[in-house]
Protein backbone atom coordinates (compact mmCIF):
# COMPACT_ATOMS: atom_id res chain seq x y z
CA UNK A 1 0.00 0.00 0.00
CA UNK A 2 1.61 3.21 -1.18
CA UNK A 3 0.37 6.77 -1.11
CA UNK A 4 1.87 8.72 -3.98
CA UNK A 5 2.24 12.49 -3.89
CA UNK A 6 2.38 13.48 -7.55
CA UNK A 7 5.48 15.57 -8.22
CA UNK A 8 5.22 17.49 -11.47
CA UNK A 9 7.80 20.07 -10.46
CA UNK A 10 5.60 22.71 -8.85
CA UNK A 11 6.14 23.74 -5.29
CA UNK A 12 6.98 22.25 -2.02
CA UNK A 13 5.73 18.72 -1.50
CA UNK A 14 7.67 17.97 1.64
CA UNK A 15 5.07 19.45 3.97
CA UNK A 16 2.30 17.29 2.60
CA UNK A 17 4.47 14.14 2.61
CA UNK A 18 5.56 14.79 6.20
CA UNK A 19 1.99 15.32 7.34
CA UNK A 20 0.86 12.09 5.63
CA UNK A 21 3.72 10.18 7.28
CA UNK A 22 2.50 11.55 10.58
CA UNK A 23 -0.97 10.00 10.18
CA UNK A 24 -0.20 6.68 8.48
CA UNK A 25 2.27 3.82 8.60
CA UNK A 26 1.80 3.25 4.88
CA UNK A 27 4.57 4.11 2.52
CA UNK A 28 4.46 7.73 1.31
CA UNK A 29 6.38 8.57 -1.88
CA UNK A 30 6.88 11.81 -3.76
CA UNK A 31 7.03 10.72 -7.38
CA UNK A 32 7.00 11.87 -10.99
CA UNK A 33 6.99 8.32 -12.32
CA UNK A 34 3.82 7.18 -14.16
CA UNK A 35 4.31 3.58 -13.09
CA UNK A 36 4.52 4.48 -9.41
CA UNK A 37 1.43 6.64 -9.81
CA UNK A 38 -0.49 3.81 -11.48
CA UNK A 39 0.70 1.37 -8.82
CA UNK A 40 -0.14 3.52 -5.79
CA UNK A 41 -3.23 2.78 -3.73
CA UNK A 42 -3.97 6.46 -3.12
CA UNK A 43 -2.90 9.67 -4.80
CA UNK A 44 -2.37 13.23 -3.68
CA UNK A 45 -2.40 15.96 -6.32
CA UNK A 46 -0.85 19.07 -4.80
CA UNK A 47 -0.28 22.38 -6.52
CA UNK A 48 1.30 25.74 -5.82
CA UNK A 49 1.93 28.90 -7.77
CA UNK A 50 0.33 29.88 -11.07
CA UNK A 51 -2.14 27.43 -12.59
CA UNK A 52 -0.76 27.87 -16.11
CA UNK A 53 2.63 26.73 -14.84
CA UNK A 54 1.04 23.84 -12.95
CA UNK A 55 -0.89 22.60 -16.02
CA UNK A 56 2.17 23.23 -18.17
CA UNK A 57 4.48 21.24 -15.92
CA UNK A 58 1.96 18.42 -15.67
CA UNK A 59 1.99 18.19 -19.47
CA UNK A 60 5.72 18.70 -19.83
CA UNK A 61 6.40 15.87 -17.41
CA UNK A 62 3.99 13.58 -19.30
CA UNK A 63 1.81 13.27 -16.25
CA UNK A 64 -1.43 14.71 -17.55
CA UNK A 65 -2.21 11.41 -19.32
CA UNK A 66 -1.78 9.27 -16.24
CA UNK A 67 -3.76 11.72 -14.08
CA UNK A 68 -6.61 11.66 -16.63
CA UNK A 69 -6.44 7.88 -16.72
CA UNK A 70 -6.62 7.61 -12.92
CA UNK A 71 -9.49 10.10 -12.74
CA UNK A 72 -11.44 8.24 -15.44
CA UNK A 73 -10.89 4.81 -13.90
CA UNK A 74 -12.33 6.00 -10.55
CA UNK A 75 -10.53 3.10 -8.93
CA UNK A 76 -8.52 4.83 -6.20
CA UNK A 77 -8.93 7.75 -3.85
CA UNK A 78 -7.36 11.01 -4.96
CA UNK A 79 -6.95 14.11 -2.82
CA UNK A 80 -6.40 17.45 -4.58
CA UNK A 81 -4.84 20.27 -2.56
CA UNK A 82 -4.80 24.01 -3.36
CA UNK A 83 -4.06 24.43 -7.09
CA UNK A 84 -4.54 20.64 -7.20
CA UNK A 85 -8.21 21.30 -6.40
CA UNK A 86 -8.46 24.04 -9.00
CA UNK A 87 -6.89 21.90 -11.75
CA UNK A 88 -9.75 19.39 -11.48
CA UNK A 89 -12.18 22.01 -12.81
CA UNK A 90 -12.85 22.90 -16.47
CA UNK A 91 -10.99 26.19 -16.68
CA UNK A 92 -9.44 28.98 -14.67
CA UNK A 93 -9.56 32.76 -15.11
CA UNK A 94 -5.93 32.96 -14.01
CA UNK A 95 -3.21 33.87 -16.54
CA UNK A 96 -5.80 35.06 -19.06
CA UNK A 97 -7.66 31.76 -19.07
CA UNK A 98 -6.28 28.24 -18.65
CA UNK A 99 -7.94 24.98 -19.67
CA UNK A 100 -7.82 22.51 -16.80
CA UNK A 101 -8.43 18.78 -16.32
CA UNK A 102 -12.24 19.06 -16.58
CA UNK A 103 -12.94 16.34 -14.07
CA UNK A 104 -15.69 18.39 -12.42
CA UNK A 105 -17.95 20.95 -14.10
CA UNK A 106 -17.21 24.49 -12.99
CA UNK A 107 -14.50 27.11 -13.10
CA UNK A 108 -11.84 28.87 -11.09
CA UNK A 109 -12.44 32.56 -10.40
CA UNK A 110 -10.39 35.45 -9.06
CA UNK A 111 -11.15 37.41 -5.90
CA UNK A 112 -11.30 40.90 -7.39
CA UNK A 113 -8.58 43.37 -6.44
CA UNK A 114 -10.49 45.83 -4.32
CA UNK A 115 -12.22 43.37 -2.06
CA UNK A 116 -14.15 44.75 0.93
CA UNK A 117 -16.11 43.24 3.77
CA UNK A 118 -19.62 44.27 4.81
CA UNK A 119 -18.19 47.15 6.88
CA UNK A 120 -16.26 48.45 3.90
CA UNK A 121 -12.94 47.30 5.34
CA UNK A 122 -10.36 46.41 2.72
CA UNK A 123 -9.65 42.68 2.45
CA UNK A 124 -6.29 41.32 1.46
CA UNK A 125 -5.68 39.17 -1.59
CA UNK A 126 -4.23 36.52 -1.38
CA UNK A 127 -6.77 35.19 1.06
CA UNK A 128 -4.16 34.09 3.58
CA UNK A 129 -4.78 32.62 7.00
CA UNK A 130 -7.28 30.56 8.95
CA UNK A 131 -10.87 30.68 7.77
CA UNK A 132 -14.02 28.73 8.52
CA UNK A 133 -15.14 25.87 6.33
CA UNK A 134 -18.86 25.16 6.31
CA UNK A 135 -19.62 21.52 5.59
CA UNK A 136 -22.08 21.91 2.71
CA UNK A 137 -22.74 18.17 2.42
CA UNK A 138 -21.65 15.34 4.69
CA UNK A 139 -18.57 13.42 3.57
CA UNK A 140 -16.43 10.67 5.14
CA UNK A 141 -13.45 13.07 5.05
CA UNK A 142 -15.25 15.39 7.50
CA UNK A 143 -15.39 12.65 10.17
CA UNK A 144 -14.36 14.04 13.56
CA UNK A 145 -14.10 17.61 12.25
CA UNK A 146 -16.55 20.24 13.50
CA UNK A 147 -18.69 22.15 11.05
CA UNK A 148 -17.19 25.63 10.54
CA UNK A 149 -13.76 24.48 11.74
CA UNK A 150 -10.88 26.68 10.61
CA UNK A 151 -8.31 25.63 8.03
CA UNK A 152 -5.25 27.40 6.66
CA UNK A 153 -5.60 29.04 3.23
CA UNK A 154 -3.28 30.82 0.82
CA UNK A 155 -4.87 31.61 -2.55
CA UNK A 156 -6.09 34.35 -4.85
CA UNK A 157 -8.35 32.20 -7.05
CA UNK A 158 -11.20 29.98 -5.94
CA UNK A 159 -13.35 27.17 -7.29
CA UNK A 160 -16.93 27.69 -8.31
CA UNK A 161 -18.42 24.27 -8.98
CA UNK A 162 -21.51 23.95 -11.13
CA UNK A 163 -23.21 20.98 -9.47
CA UNK A 164 -24.38 21.36 -5.90
CA UNK A 165 -23.74 17.65 -5.27
CA UNK A 166 -20.00 18.18 -5.99
CA UNK A 167 -19.67 20.84 -3.27
CA UNK A 168 -18.68 19.61 0.21
CA UNK A 169 -17.31 22.72 1.84
CA UNK A 170 -17.69 26.48 1.44
CA UNK A 171 -15.91 29.54 2.79
CA UNK A 172 -17.08 33.15 2.64
CA UNK A 173 -14.58 35.85 1.74
CA UNK A 174 -15.33 39.38 0.65
CA UNK A 175 -18.89 38.54 -0.36
CA UNK A 176 -17.83 35.51 -2.41
CA UNK A 177 -18.67 31.93 -1.59
CA UNK A 178 -15.65 29.84 -2.44
CA UNK A 179 -16.27 26.12 -2.92
CA UNK A 180 -13.27 25.08 -0.88
CA UNK A 181 -14.00 21.36 -0.75
CA UNK A 182 -15.26 19.61 -3.86
CA UNK A 183 -15.38 16.05 -5.09
CA UNK A 184 -17.19 13.17 -6.66
CA UNK A 185 -16.75 9.42 -6.18
CA UNK A 186 -13.18 8.66 -5.08
CA UNK A 187 -12.00 12.21 -5.70
CA UNK A 188 -11.95 14.83 -2.94
CA UNK A 189 -10.22 18.16 -3.28
CA UNK A 190 -9.63 21.10 -0.98
CA UNK A 191 -8.47 24.67 -1.50
CA UNK A 192 -6.98 24.91 2.00
CA UNK A 193 -3.83 23.19 3.18
CA UNK A 194 -4.70 20.25 5.44
CA UNK A 195 -0.98 19.62 5.95
CA UNK A 196 -0.74 23.07 7.59
CA UNK A 197 -4.08 23.12 9.40
CA UNK A 198 -3.00 21.65 12.73
CA UNK A 199 -5.24 19.01 14.31
CA UNK A 200 -8.24 19.32 11.97
CA UNK A 201 -5.98 19.20 8.93
CA UNK A 202 -4.24 16.07 10.17
CA UNK A 203 -7.65 14.54 10.89
CA UNK A 204 -8.73 15.17 7.30
CA UNK A 205 -5.55 13.50 6.03
CA UNK A 206 -6.11 10.60 8.39
CA UNK A 207 -9.67 10.29 7.07
CA UNK A 208 -8.28 10.30 3.54
CA UNK A 209 -5.73 7.54 4.13
CA UNK A 210 -8.40 5.28 5.63
CA UNK A 211 -11.19 6.24 3.19
CA UNK A 212 -12.82 3.48 1.13
CA UNK A 213 -15.09 5.27 -1.34
Amino acid at each position, binding site marked *: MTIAVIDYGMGNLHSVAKALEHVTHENVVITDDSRSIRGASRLVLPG*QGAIRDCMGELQRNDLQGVVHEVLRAQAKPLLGICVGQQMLMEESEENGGVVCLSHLPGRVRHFERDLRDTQGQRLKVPHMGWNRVTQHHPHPLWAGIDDDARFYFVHSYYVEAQEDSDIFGTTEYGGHTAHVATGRGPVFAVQFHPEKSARDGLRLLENFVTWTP
Partner: protein
Amino acid sequence: MALAKRIIPCLDVDAGRVVKGVNFVGIRDAGDPVEVAKRYNQQGADEITFLDITASHEDRGTTVEMVERIAGEVFIPLTVGGGIRTCDDIRTMLNAGADKVSINTAAVTNPDFVHEAAERFGSQCIVVAIDAKRVSAEGEPPRWEIFTHGGRKPTGLDAVEWASKMVELGAGELLLTSMDRDGTKAGFDLGVTHAIADAVSVPIIASGGVGHLDHLVAGVKEGGADAVLAASIFHFGEYTIPDAKRYMVEQGIEMRL
Protein backbone atom coordinates in the same frame (compact mmCIF):
# COMPACT_ATOMS: atom_id res chain seq x y z
CA MET B 1 -15.60 38.62 8.12
CA ALA B 2 -14.47 35.23 9.22
CA LEU B 3 -10.78 35.24 8.36
CA ALA B 4 -8.97 35.10 11.68
CA LYS B 5 -6.13 37.41 12.64
CA ARG B 6 -3.00 35.41 13.35
CA ILE B 7 -0.64 35.17 16.31
CA ILE B 8 2.87 34.19 15.31
CA PRO B 9 5.41 33.38 18.01
CA CYS B 10 8.91 34.08 16.76
CA LEU B 11 11.94 31.96 17.52
CA ASP B 12 15.20 33.91 17.25
CA VAL B 13 17.69 31.08 16.97
CA ASP B 14 21.42 31.40 17.56
CA ALA B 15 23.60 28.31 17.15
CA GLY B 16 20.69 25.96 17.78
CA ARG B 17 19.13 27.72 20.78
CA VAL B 18 16.17 30.08 21.03
CA VAL B 19 17.41 33.39 22.35
CA LYS B 20 15.88 36.77 22.86
CA GLY B 21 17.89 39.92 22.97
CA VAL B 22 16.57 43.13 24.45
CA ASN B 23 17.56 45.71 21.87
CA PHE B 24 20.12 43.14 20.70
CA VAL B 25 22.07 42.98 23.96
CA GLY B 26 21.55 40.89 27.07
CA ILE B 27 20.56 37.74 25.22
CA ARG B 28 18.55 35.30 27.31
CA ASP B 29 18.31 31.59 26.52
CA ALA B 30 14.76 30.42 25.87
CA GLY B 31 15.33 26.78 25.05
CA ASP B 32 15.51 24.18 22.31
CA PRO B 33 13.79 25.39 19.10
CA VAL B 34 12.03 22.08 18.46
CA GLU B 35 10.60 21.92 21.98
CA VAL B 36 9.59 25.58 21.89
CA ALA B 37 7.91 25.16 18.48
CA LYS B 38 6.02 22.09 19.70
CA ARG B 39 4.82 23.95 22.76
CA TYR B 40 3.47 26.83 20.68
CA ASN B 41 1.82 24.42 18.27
CA GLN B 42 0.07 22.67 21.19
CA GLN B 43 -1.03 26.05 22.52
CA GLY B 44 -2.70 26.88 19.21
CA ALA B 45 -0.24 29.27 17.55
CA ASP B 46 -1.37 30.10 14.01
CA GLU B 47 2.10 30.00 12.50
CA ILE B 48 5.69 29.89 13.63
CA THR B 49 8.53 32.09 12.46
CA PHE B 50 12.08 30.86 12.84
CA LEU B 51 14.72 33.56 12.49
CA ASP B 52 18.28 32.35 12.21
CA ILE B 53 20.43 34.99 13.86
CA THR B 54 23.50 32.77 14.00
CA ALA B 55 26.52 34.92 13.52
CA SER B 56 29.01 32.28 12.45
CA HIS B 57 28.65 30.65 9.07
CA GLU B 58 29.72 27.22 10.39
CA ASP B 59 26.62 26.87 12.53
CA ARG B 60 24.25 27.36 9.60
CA GLY B 61 23.90 23.62 9.02
CA THR B 62 22.28 23.37 12.44
CA THR B 63 19.46 25.57 11.19
CA VAL B 64 18.51 23.23 8.36
CA GLU B 65 18.45 20.30 10.75
CA MET B 66 16.29 22.26 13.24
CA VAL B 67 13.85 23.27 10.51
CA GLU B 68 13.58 19.64 9.40
CA ARG B 69 12.83 18.50 12.93
CA ILE B 70 10.24 21.22 13.52
CA ALA B 71 8.54 20.57 10.18
CA GLY B 72 8.29 16.86 10.98
CA GLU B 73 6.31 17.55 14.14
CA VAL B 74 4.55 20.87 13.77
CA PHE B 75 1.78 21.04 11.18
CA ILE B 76 1.12 24.75 10.95
CA PRO B 77 2.84 27.21 8.58
CA LEU B 78 6.53 27.67 9.25
CA THR B 79 8.47 30.69 8.01
CA VAL B 80 12.27 30.65 8.06
CA GLY B 81 14.36 33.80 7.81
CA GLY B 82 17.89 34.96 8.37
CA GLY B 83 20.62 34.72 5.78
CA ILE B 84 18.34 33.96 2.81
CA ARG B 85 20.34 35.37 -0.10
CA THR B 86 19.94 33.05 -3.08
CA CYS B 87 17.34 30.83 -4.71
CA ASP B 88 19.43 27.89 -3.51
CA ASP B 89 19.02 29.11 0.09
CA ILE B 90 15.26 29.20 -0.48
CA ARG B 91 15.18 25.74 -2.02
CA THR B 92 17.21 24.34 0.90
CA MET B 93 14.76 25.76 3.44
CA LEU B 94 11.65 24.68 1.53
CA ASN B 95 13.10 21.19 1.16
CA ALA B 96 13.81 21.14 4.88
CA GLY B 97 10.10 21.78 5.46
CA ALA B 98 9.67 25.55 5.60
CA ASP B 99 6.50 26.87 3.97
CA LYS B 100 7.72 30.41 3.52
CA VAL B 101 11.05 32.17 3.65
CA SER B 102 11.66 35.66 4.87
CA ILE B 103 14.07 37.80 2.85
CA ASN B 104 15.60 40.78 4.57
CA THR B 105 18.99 42.29 3.71
CA ALA B 106 19.17 40.56 0.32
CA ALA B 107 16.02 42.42 -0.74
CA VAL B 108 17.76 45.72 -0.04
CA THR B 109 21.05 44.87 -1.73
CA ASN B 110 19.34 43.20 -4.71
CA PRO B 111 15.59 43.91 -5.07
CA ASP B 112 15.41 41.74 -8.21
CA PHE B 113 16.10 38.75 -5.99
CA VAL B 114 12.56 39.15 -4.61
CA HIS B 115 11.18 39.07 -8.15
CA GLU B 116 13.27 36.07 -9.11
CA ALA B 117 12.27 34.20 -5.94
CA ALA B 118 8.57 34.95 -6.40
CA GLU B 119 8.69 33.84 -10.04
CA ARG B 120 10.43 30.64 -9.15
CA PHE B 121 8.72 29.59 -5.93
CA GLY B 122 5.49 31.60 -6.00
CA SER B 123 4.60 34.74 -4.04
CA GLN B 124 2.82 32.63 -1.42
CA CYS B 125 6.14 31.57 0.06
CA ILE B 126 8.03 34.85 -0.22
CA VAL B 127 7.87 37.09 2.84
CA VAL B 128 9.88 40.30 2.75
CA ALA B 129 11.08 41.48 6.15
CA ILE B 130 11.13 45.24 6.49
CA ASP B 131 13.09 46.80 9.33
CA ALA B 132 11.90 50.38 9.66
CA LYS B 133 12.96 53.20 11.93
CA ARG B 134 11.33 56.57 12.38
CA VAL B 135 13.57 59.30 10.97
CA SER B 136 11.30 62.34 11.26
CA ALA B 137 11.57 64.58 14.31
CA GLU B 138 8.66 65.26 16.67
CA GLY B 139 6.21 67.60 15.01
CA GLU B 140 7.35 66.78 11.46
CA PRO B 141 5.17 64.66 9.18
CA PRO B 142 6.06 61.08 10.10
CA ARG B 143 8.59 59.33 7.90
CA TRP B 144 10.23 55.93 8.30
CA GLU B 145 13.34 54.57 6.67
CA ILE B 146 14.61 51.06 5.99
CA PHE B 147 17.56 49.98 8.12
CA THR B 148 19.71 46.88 7.76
CA HIS B 149 22.24 45.10 9.97
CA GLY B 150 19.97 44.82 12.97
CA GLY B 151 18.88 48.44 12.75
CA ARG B 152 22.36 49.94 12.62
CA LYS B 153 22.70 50.79 8.94
CA PRO B 154 20.41 53.37 7.29
CA THR B 155 19.61 52.92 3.60
CA GLY B 156 17.83 56.17 2.80
CA LEU B 157 14.85 54.16 1.50
CA ASP B 158 11.39 55.35 2.50
CA ALA B 159 9.66 52.46 4.26
CA VAL B 160 6.20 52.92 2.74
CA GLU B 161 7.53 53.28 -0.82
CA TRP B 162 9.81 50.33 -0.24
CA ALA B 163 6.90 48.17 0.96
CA SER B 164 4.91 48.95 -2.21
CA LYS B 165 7.91 48.15 -4.36
CA MET B 166 8.44 44.79 -2.65
CA VAL B 167 4.80 43.84 -3.27
CA GLU B 168 5.10 44.85 -6.94
CA LEU B 169 8.16 42.63 -7.20
CA GLY B 170 6.24 39.68 -5.83
CA ALA B 171 6.34 39.64 -2.02
CA GLY B 172 3.30 37.69 -0.81
CA GLU B 173 3.44 39.04 2.72
CA LEU B 174 5.42 41.68 4.64
CA LEU B 175 6.98 41.23 8.05
CA LEU B 176 7.31 44.73 9.42
CA THR B 177 9.60 45.30 12.39
CA SER B 178 9.96 48.62 14.10
CA MET B 179 13.61 48.94 14.99
CA ASP B 180 12.79 51.68 17.50
CA ARG B 181 10.51 49.34 19.37
CA ASP B 182 12.07 45.90 18.97
CA GLY B 183 12.84 44.48 22.40
CA THR B 184 11.47 47.52 24.26
CA LYS B 185 8.03 46.09 25.24
CA ALA B 186 6.60 49.55 24.48
CA GLY B 187 4.22 48.30 21.77
CA PHE B 188 4.29 48.31 17.97
CA ASP B 189 4.98 51.50 16.04
CA LEU B 190 1.37 51.81 14.92
CA GLY B 191 2.08 54.74 12.60
CA VAL B 192 4.31 52.83 10.23
CA THR B 193 2.18 49.69 10.53
CA HIS B 194 -0.93 51.57 9.50
CA ALA B 195 0.83 53.48 6.72
CA ILE B 196 2.11 50.27 5.13
CA ALA B 197 -1.04 48.21 5.74
CA ASP B 198 -2.94 50.94 3.93
CA ALA B 199 -0.50 51.14 1.04
CA VAL B 200 -0.30 47.48 0.03
CA SER B 201 -2.74 44.69 -0.82
CA VAL B 202 -0.86 41.78 0.79
CA PRO B 203 -1.04 40.73 4.46
CA ILE B 204 1.13 42.57 7.00
CA ILE B 205 2.70 40.99 10.06
CA ALA B 206 3.42 43.56 12.77
CA SER B 207 6.51 42.96 14.87
CA GLY B 208 8.76 44.65 17.38
CA GLY B 209 7.92 45.87 20.83
CA VAL B 210 5.16 43.68 22.21
CA GLY B 211 5.13 43.81 26.00
CA HIS B 212 1.44 43.50 26.78
CA LEU B 213 -1.66 41.92 25.25
CA ASP B 214 -3.11 45.38 24.54
CA HIS B 215 -0.23 45.87 22.13
CA LEU B 216 -1.42 42.89 20.07
CA VAL B 217 -4.93 44.33 20.00
CA ALA B 218 -3.65 47.74 18.93
CA GLY B 219 -1.53 46.21 16.17
CA VAL B 220 -4.68 44.78 14.59
CA LYS B 221 -7.22 47.47 15.42
CA GLU B 222 -5.14 50.61 15.03
CA GLY B 223 -2.25 49.35 12.94
CA GLY B 224 -4.40 47.33 10.55
CA ALA B 225 -2.08 44.31 10.76
CA ASP B 226 -3.30 40.91 9.59
CA ALA B 227 -1.00 39.08 11.97
CA VAL B 228 1.01 39.94 15.06
CA LEU B 229 4.40 38.52 15.90
CA ALA B 230 5.91 38.37 19.36
CA ALA B 231 8.70 36.53 21.08
CA SER B 232 9.62 37.29 24.64
CA ILE B 233 6.10 37.70 26.08
CA PHE B 234 5.51 34.06 25.13
CA HIS B 235 8.98 32.59 25.69
CA PHE B 236 9.24 33.48 29.33
CA GLY B 237 5.71 32.48 30.29
CA GLU B 238 4.26 35.95 30.85
CA TYR B 239 1.39 35.00 28.59
CA THR B 240 0.37 31.86 26.75
CA ILE B 241 -1.00 31.86 23.20
CA PRO B 242 -4.52 31.05 24.51
CA ASP B 243 -4.29 34.00 26.96
CA ALA B 244 -3.50 36.28 24.04
CA LYS B 245 -6.21 34.84 21.79
CA ARG B 246 -8.90 35.00 24.43
CA TYR B 247 -8.00 38.59 25.20
CA MET B 248 -8.11 39.56 21.54
CA VAL B 249 -11.50 37.87 21.11
CA GLU B 250 -12.81 39.83 24.11
CA GLN B 251 -11.69 42.97 22.32
CA GLY B 252 -13.79 42.01 19.31
CA ILE B 253 -11.06 40.52 17.09
CA GLU B 254 -11.78 37.36 15.13
CA MET B 255 -9.33 34.64 16.17
CA ARG B 256 -8.98 30.90 15.73
CA LEU B 257 -9.50 29.38 19.18
